[in-house]
């Protein structure tokens, strides 16, 4: 890896194919991205009561996330401190304690070691249980979404989300009720590098009309016009793309939130009933975002479609495989029937048997596995669509691109990926806070565009 000096070229907007293939790159990602970033663990709605727990992953690490008696959330590594056995094998449940199957060591809800069999008889009272708690993981929540971080030096979750909260508040708070997740998740293995789906969700409006042409023609409605990527579509009037300092980004298609849903009455009515309050709280620009369809990734490996409401985590399994977990996002204060219908529609389109998601599998895996060939792998891949048609915006924070079909969000994603991989620690990342967006050189793009429109 260290022999490949230019994994990401921010000037030419391309990347080495090694980023999808090389094991050393992957190992560095585990250290410098996954062990340092805030990773999605769950949502309060998945473990609503004290004692409720779920098991999940942070990259390749197994984690138990538990709702404490005081209402807080704690997470710890799902491995016994005795001989390393996995402590808990259930997907979810309610437990005051977790017992390791091997020799019966007992861990509390916070991961502390509370009991071991034959402690007096065979350990002679000499076992220092206080030093043998399961490894603790930092946990912070934002609007009910729970994240974990393996790095004590990482900024707070709020700082990590940073200016992207301006966007997330629009939907995760919305008119007040916010969003929650419905499980249990679908889980599947896909033979691809984790970044292929992450980049696809963060900024790939381009593939929709081609990859999903068949499904779009079946669904009909607002997005059917995208089928075939016809040149006569006024894409610049249909939406935007956004990217932010820590790599989070999304594309939005205006007025299309429930477009993929066939039976959408409840969800469409919910949006119609609540959008005015969102406009009052957050202003007209964010009211527009609230009724738009988003394809979004939170750096590094969590993605969702707001509107369609599928919610995904791409857990890496080495450089060439991921385990995909898929939940549904629903408004907390929607009625039960609406929630259930959103879940059915989101799953029909983007579940394991999704009418759209099933189109993508081969794109993900073949973009990874073509690089088995050395001559192939020594090439580069491009994300230059719309370079220069983007910049800082007078209203929207971060960097904004002029169309949802563009690669602004790819550029922002890989810009931060490179920054994290280059940085020995968080201090080195923070040192770039004021200059992170200097690669987006058309600083007057939006001012000129707004002036020209007036």
């Amino acid at each position: 890896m260290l022999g490949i000096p230019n994994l990401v070229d921010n000037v030419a907007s391309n990347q080495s194919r090694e980023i999808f293939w090389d094991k050393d790159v992957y190992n560095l990602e585990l250290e410098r991205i996954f062990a340092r970033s805030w990773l999605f663990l769950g949502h309060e709605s998945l473990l609503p009561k004290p004692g409720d727990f779920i098991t999940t992953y942070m990259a390749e690490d197994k984690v138990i996330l538990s709702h404490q008696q005081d209402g807080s959330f704690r997470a710890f590594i799902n491995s016994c401190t005795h001989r390393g056995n996995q402590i808990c094998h259930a997907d979810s449940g309610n437990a005051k304690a977790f017992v390791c199957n091997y020799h019966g060591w007992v861990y509390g809800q916070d991961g502390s070691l509370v009991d071991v069999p034959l402690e007096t008889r065979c350990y002679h009272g000499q076992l220092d249980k206080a030093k043998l708690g399961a490894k603790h993981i930092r946990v912070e929540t934002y609007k009910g979404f729970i994240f974990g971080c393996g790095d004590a030096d990482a900024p707070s979750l709020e700082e990590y989300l940073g200016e992207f909260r301006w966007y997330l508040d629009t939907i995760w708070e919305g008119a007040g009720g916010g969003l929650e997740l419905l499980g249990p998740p679908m889980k599947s293995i896909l033979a691809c590098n984790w970044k292929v789906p992450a980049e696809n969700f963060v900024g790939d409006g381009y593939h929709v009309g081609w990859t999903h042409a068949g499904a779009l023609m079946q669904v009909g409605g607002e997005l059917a016009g995208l089928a075939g990527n016809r040149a006569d579509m006024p894409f610049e009037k249909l939406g935007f793309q956004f990217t932010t300092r820590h790599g989070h980004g999304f594309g939005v298609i205006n007025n299309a939130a429930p477009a993929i849903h066939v039976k959408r009455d409840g969800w469409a009515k919910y949006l119609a009933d609540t959008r005015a309050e969102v406009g009052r709280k957050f202003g007209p620009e964010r009211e527009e975002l609230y009724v738009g369809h988003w394809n979004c990734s939170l750096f590094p490996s969590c993605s969702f479609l707001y509107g369609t409401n599928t919610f995904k985590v791409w857990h890496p399994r080495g450089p060439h495989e991921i385990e995909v977990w898929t939940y549904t996002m629903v408004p907390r204060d929607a009625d039960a029937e609406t929630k259930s219908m959103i879940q059915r529609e989101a799953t029909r389109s983007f579940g394991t048997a999704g009418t759209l998601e099933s189109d993508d599998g081969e794109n993900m895996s073949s973009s990874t596995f073509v690089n088995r060939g050395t001559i192939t792998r020594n090439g580069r891949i491009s994300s230059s669509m719309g370079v220069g048609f983007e910049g800082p915006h007078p209203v929207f924070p971060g960097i904004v691109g002029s169309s949802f079909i563009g690669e602004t969000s790819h550029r922002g994603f890989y810009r931060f990926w490179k920054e994290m991989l280059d940085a020995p620690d968080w201090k080195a990342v923070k040192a770039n806070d004021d200059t992170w967006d200097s690669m987006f050189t058309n600083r007057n793009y939006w001012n000129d565009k707004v002036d020209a429109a007036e």
Partner: protein
Amino acid sequence: MSGKQTLAGLDVQSAIEMHYRSEVRMLQNGQYREWLADMVAEDIHYWMPIYEQRLIRDRRPDPTPDDAAIYNDDYGELKQRVERLYTGTVWMEDPPSKIRYMVGNVEAFDAGDGEFEVYSNVVVYRNRRQLEVTVHTLGREDKLRRVGDGFQVFRRKLLIDARVTQDKNLYFFC
């Protein structure tokens, strides 16, 4: 399945097995429209629930059709899934992939009024492109009714054995 159920009898059992064999043939041949029209009732509920891994002591009920499911479709929704395969723009199916079903352990019970409850095991082999092979095993719980000379399914519950699907997708019919 309870002990109270009445076996459908050998003639019906064998007619249902024949029915399943033709169903498999249609699905293997890509005759999805014919399958839907001839073998699936318009009041179908086609359901593949998601079962979590839970401890035995967990008292929560099994999933219902109001809960998360990989398939949870009525007739119109199944038709949408079928028609997508005829658009000519499903790139993953061009060249087409192969699928083969092994249906076994068919047990048919008489539910009265020309309706039958039928349990079966299904092994699905999928091959695509050059080397891709995936295998799925499922339990299948059907309710069939007599229609003309044959049967149509009006409830189909598919119990997939693997918690984590080791395949790109589950876009196939059972």
